[in-house]
């Protein structure tokens, strides 16, 4: 498998890779927050992105989805180059993200939060908006789909409450459900399980797995290694803005560079060097 990817990468776009980033760099003042030489997310797989706090994971999400502009770099999603593409077009292409700090639409109801996410609504065109005949049927279908999703995320009972009245964990759930409402081909979830109670976490994991079974590719950030072990097909480890290791969950947890990155500052100095050699070595393989 790894050989096939490497050779295909040299030849051109690989159909097995849905998202691929090369040399994406972002500096804040003099501080380099993200400096990723290469990152590939495989189609139909669950990829976990892990790394200590401040590693640059959320910043990378922002860059890849157009919410922030990198200083340099190229990335392709499903055959489209995304550099310079604004966020709403990224989402329309099928790559939808959630936010680490949830962004629910507080004064809209939970159901409206869901319905707004449905793609290609005729009723969002100004000329069609006054004529409910033009969009009423579609609205019914969207409502049915929204309620099915809400039921899966145990939020159906809250559907008429304003989203601002939800608890922190419920907001996480709503945001994930809402992202799915866009009918994405790939979802990028920034710590979807943070603040969700353990029982629900288990069922969330089930959802993520079922997403994969539906053919959706998943990239998610998570700090809890047990979760990562349980569901991820592939794990990418970031530290200090760089990708320092990739592989299966088992492989990366045994990687000493990863261990030292998590242990923190003390090993920070030589981490940079080893990270460079690591990614170089991997590419050559």
């Amino acid at each position: 498998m790894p050989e096939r990817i490497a050779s295909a990468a040299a030849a051109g776009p690989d159909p097995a890779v849905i998202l691929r980033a090369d040399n994406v760099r972002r500096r804040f003042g003099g501080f380099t927050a993200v400096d990723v030489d290469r990152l590939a997310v495989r189609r139909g797989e669950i990829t976990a992105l892990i790394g200590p706090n401040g590693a640059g994971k959320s910043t990378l999400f922002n860059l890849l989805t157009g919410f922030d502009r990198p200083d340099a770099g190229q990335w392709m999603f499903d055959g489209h180059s995304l550099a310079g593409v604004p966020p709403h077009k990224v989402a329309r292409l099928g790559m939808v993200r959630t936010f680490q700090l949830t962004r629910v639409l507080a004064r809209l109801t939970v159901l409206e939060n869901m319905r707004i996410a449905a793609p290609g609504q005729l009723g969002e065109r100004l000329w069609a908006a006054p004529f409910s005949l033009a969009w009423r049927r579609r609205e019914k279908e969207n409502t049915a789909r929204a309620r099915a999703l809400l039921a899966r995320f145990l939020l159906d009972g809250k559907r008429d409450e304003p989203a601002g009245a939800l608890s922190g964990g419920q907001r996480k759930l709503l945001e994930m459900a809402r992202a799915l409402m866009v009918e994405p081909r790939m979802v990028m979830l920034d710590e979807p399980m943070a603040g969700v109670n353990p029982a629900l976490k288990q069922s969330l994991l089930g959802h993520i797995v079922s997403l994969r079974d539906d053919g959706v590719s998943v990239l998610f950030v998570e700090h809890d290694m047990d979760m990562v072990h349980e569901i991820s097909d592939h794990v990418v480890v970031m530290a200090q803005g760089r990708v320092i290791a990739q592989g299966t969950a088992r492989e990366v947890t045994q990687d000493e560079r990863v261990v030292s990155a998590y242990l923190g500052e003390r090993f920070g100095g030589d981490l940079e060097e080893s990270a460079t050699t690591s990614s170089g070595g991997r590419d050559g393989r």
Partner: protein
Amino acid sequence: MDILTSALRAGFSVDAAYFCLAAIGLNVQFGYAGLINFGQAGFLAVGAYGFAVGSVSLGLPFSAAIGLGLLCSVALGLVLGLPTLRLRADYLAIATIAAAEVLRLFFGAAFQDVFHGRDGISGFSAAFQAANPFDHPFLGYRPSDLWVMTVGWGLVVIVSVFVWSIMRGPWGRVLKAIREDEEAVRSLGKNVYAFKMQALAIGGLIGALGGFVVALGQNSVQPDNFSFDLTFIVCTMLVLGGAARIMGPVIGAVVFWAFLSLVGGVLDALTAGQDPTIPAWLMTGDQIGTIRFVLVGVALVLLMIYRPQGIFGNRKEMALHA
């Protein structure tokens, strides 16, 4: 009693009607989409001037002149929106307040042979008044005013229904969502910039309708009709009646004008006569106008601090926002 009836009459006057249209426009922009437009007077001005120049200088028929006025207001929306709607909300506020002021100066000083300076353009409502079905004063309103009031309030009804019809569906939902959190809406694949642009333009169009009502009501347009005071009053009316509600601007306009007239009447009575209740060294009848404006300002500030949802609004709904 006299004060009360004249307050009631002021609440439904021509002025109340055109201010109400301006407020409905602002409601689309600020109430629903969260865009801060401090230059609604500018939208009324370009509408009214477009219409007046079209009728008088270009000799266009009535409907074509109206069309020209509407076109001008959309153009103003584009010019102000294009550079600012991608940026922080402050920039739209700054650009609109500046543009409205510059427009007023422009109409007052440039192309004097077209705009006639501060005297303004007049003499274009003969055709409109010719269609006036009223020939007797009624409730103390003059026939010409009755006709303008009918058209003005008729427009208020039509526009309110239109705004209701676009706000209840998916388009209005995106607008309200933008007011809540732009980034979230972007992440769901909506072109926020385009929606804001549409909201700004629609609000401006409705403002231009207000401009037509002023123009027809006075049979003239003058730059000083469109000073910052207008924008400010519209803003206060909207907050008073409740932003992001269909009836908000209507209630706001009626209550505001009735209240303003009431205060004016009371102050008038207190400062009138040989030995007025309020001594002349403190305040004379000529200062009523400014005192009323001070009160309007105080009302807006207090509303924004304590009841941003308006006098009849639902407190809980606003609290969620904070």
